[in-house]
C-alpha cells in the first residue's frame, strides 16, 4: 500500500520531529510568559488598541489579557499560520522538482506506476508533518496552559488545529504546483515560500483599507485562530473554501505533471 508515500514519509520523520520539538519549545516559552503579562499593571490592551489596524489584524492581536487572546496572537497567527504555512509550501515545492532535477524520478517512473500516482503519493507524504504537528501542538499548548493555571478550552484549541489543516494543504498545494512546473527544486521551493509570504503580507496590509478585497486572494485570510480561540465562533465556510482550493491545486498539478516532458 502506498509505497511511494511510505518511502517519502520516512525521509520526513527526522525533520518533522525536529520541527515539532522546536515549535513545542517555543509554545511553552510563550505560555510561560503569559502570567507575567496578565498580572502586569501596564495597560497592554490599550497599547494594542493604539497599533495600526493592519498590524493588529495581521498578527491577530486583540487582547493579551486573556490566555486565549495571547496564545492566538503570539502563537497561532504568527508561528502556526505563517511559519508552518511557509514550511509546508517549502516542503511541497520540493516533492517533484527536486527529484526531476536530480534525475531520481527516472528510476521510479520506469516502473509500471503512473506519474499521477507517484505525484499524488508524494503529496500524501506531506501529511506526515501536518498530522504529527497537529497532534503534538494542541497537547503541548493545552498542557502548558494547565501548568500555568490558565487552562484553555481544549475543544476550541482542537478546532483551531482541525480547521488549519485545509490552510496547510493549500500551502502544500501551492508548493506542489510550482514543483510540477519548474525543473529546479530550489527555484520551486523559494518561489513557494515567497508566494505564501507575499500573500500573508497582502492580507495584512490591505486590512481596513479600501483595497481590503485584494487580500482575499491570500489563503491566510480564510483562517482566523483569534476568532475561534477568543470569540469561540466557528466558521466552516472558509475552511471548506480552502479545502476546495487545495484540491484544485493538487489536481491541476497532477494533470500538468502527467503531461510534461521530464
Amino acid at each position, binding site marked *: 500500500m502506498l509505497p*511511494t508515500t511510505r518511502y517519502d514519509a*520516512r525521509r520526513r520523520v527526522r525533520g518533522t520531529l525536529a520541527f515539532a520539538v522546536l515549535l513545542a519549545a517555543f509554545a511553552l516559552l510563550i505560555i510561560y510568559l503569559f502570567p507575567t503579562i496578565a498580572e502586569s499593571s501596564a495597560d497592554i490592551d490599550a497599547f494594542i488598541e493604539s497599533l495600526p489596524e493592519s498590524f493588529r489584524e495581521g498578527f491577530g492581536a486583540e487582547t493579551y489579557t486573556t490566555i486565549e487572546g495571547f496564545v492566538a496572537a503570539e502563537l497561532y497567527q504568527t508561528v502556526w499560520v505563517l511559519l508552518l504555512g511557509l514550511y509546508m509550501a517549502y516542503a511541497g515545492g520540493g516533492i517533484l522538482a527536486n527529484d526531476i532535477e536530480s534525475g531520481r524520478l*527516472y528510476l521510479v517512473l520506469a*516502473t509500471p506506476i503512473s506519474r499521477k500516482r507517484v505525484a499524488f503519493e508524494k503529496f500524501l507524504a506531506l501529511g506526515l508533518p501536518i498530522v504529527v504537528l497537529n497532534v503534538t501542538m494542541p497537547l503541548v499548548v493545552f498542557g502548558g496552559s494547565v501548568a500555568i493555571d490558565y487552562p484553555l478550552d481544549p475543544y476550541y484549541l482542537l478546532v483551531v488545529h482541525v480547521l488549519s489543516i485545509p490552510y496547510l494543504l493549500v500551502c502544500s498545494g501551492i508548493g506542489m504546483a510550482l514543483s510540477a512546473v519548474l525543473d529546479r527544486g530550489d527555484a520551486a521551493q523559494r518561489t513557494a515560500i515567497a508566494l505564501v509570504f507575499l500573500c500573508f503580507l497582502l492580507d495584512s496590509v490591505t486590512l481596513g483599507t479600501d483595497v481590503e478585497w485584494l487580500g482575499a486572494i491570500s489563503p491566510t485570510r480564510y483562517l482566523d485562530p483569534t476568532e475561534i480561540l477568543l470569540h469561540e465562533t466557528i466558521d466552516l465556510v472558509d475552511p471548506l473554501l480552502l479545502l476546495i482550493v487545495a484540491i484544485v491545486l493538487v489536481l491541476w498539478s497532477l494533470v500538468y505533471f*502527467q503531461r510534461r516532458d521530464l
Partner: protein
Amino acid sequence: MAVIEVQGLTKAYGDTVANDHLDFAIEAGEIFGYLGPNGAGKSTTIRQLMGFQAPTEGTARIFGHDVRDDRELRQAKARIGFLPGEPAFTPSVTGREFLDYQAELKGDTRRDELLDLFTPPLDRQIREYSTGNKQMLAIVQAFMHDPDLLIMDEPTSGLDPLKQEAFHGFLREERDRGKTVFFSSHILGEVRRVCDRVGIIRDGRLITVERVEELLARGGKQVGLHTETPLTESDLDLEGVVGFESEGREARFTFTGDYNDLFAALADHRIVDVEIDEPPIEEVFMHFYGGED
C-alpha cells in the same frame, strides 16, 4: 514481432532537432548497441521510449504498445528493466531500502542472484557510494524483476574493468536466455564484444543500422606503406582512401575501396614494406563520425 519498433521518431526542442525521423526495429533476443558521440541524441531516444518525453512527431512501440499512450506504455514497462545514464538516488537511504522500494513498485524475483555478481554495499547510505557502486545498484534494480527487455543508457560507465567484463558476460547470458537488450554507448570495444547489431546516430540522425561484423568489414583496412620516395595524397587519388597521413617515407590510411585500384596506383612507386591490418574499431566509427568532408 519486433520488441521495439521506432517509427519516424522525432523530437525537437525549439529549433534543435535532437531526434530526426528515426526508424529502426529491435528483434527479440538480440543485443542492440545504440552508438553515437555525446550530444548525438541517444538519451533523447531513450527518454522517449520510456515515456519521459513525448515525441514531437512519429512514435515507437514496445511489445506493440505505443509509447505516446501512458496506459499502454505502463503495460510494457512491467516487462522493461531500465538503467538511466548517471543513475541518481535519494542520498539518505541505504541501498537495501532503495531496492525494497523498487521491489514494491515492480517486483523482485532475482535480487539475491544479482547481488552475487554486482556488490554494492547495501547497508550503507547511498550518499557514501562511489560512482561504481551506484552503477551496480542501478544494474541490480534494472534486472531484479527479471524483465524481458533491458533499456540502458551507458550501462558500464563508472564500472571498473573487471565489473565491466562481468557485466558483458552477464548480458550475453541474458541474451541467450531470450532477453532483448537495447543500450547506448560510446565505448567502441564494448560494442564489438557484446552487440549483435548496432545503430549509429549522429546529430539526431540515424546513419546506419547493421550487424557488427558487417560494420567492421565495411570499415575497410588499415594500410601502412613504406616507399623509397615519399608518397603524397595526390599519388593515391582513389575512391576509398580515408584519413591519409604521411611522415617521410611512411604513409598510413584507411582503405575501403578495391585493392586492384590501389595496387595499380602504387605500381609507379618502389615499395619497401606494406602492412594491411584490421583497423582499430575507433577508425570504423571515425568513418561515420568524421567531419563533413
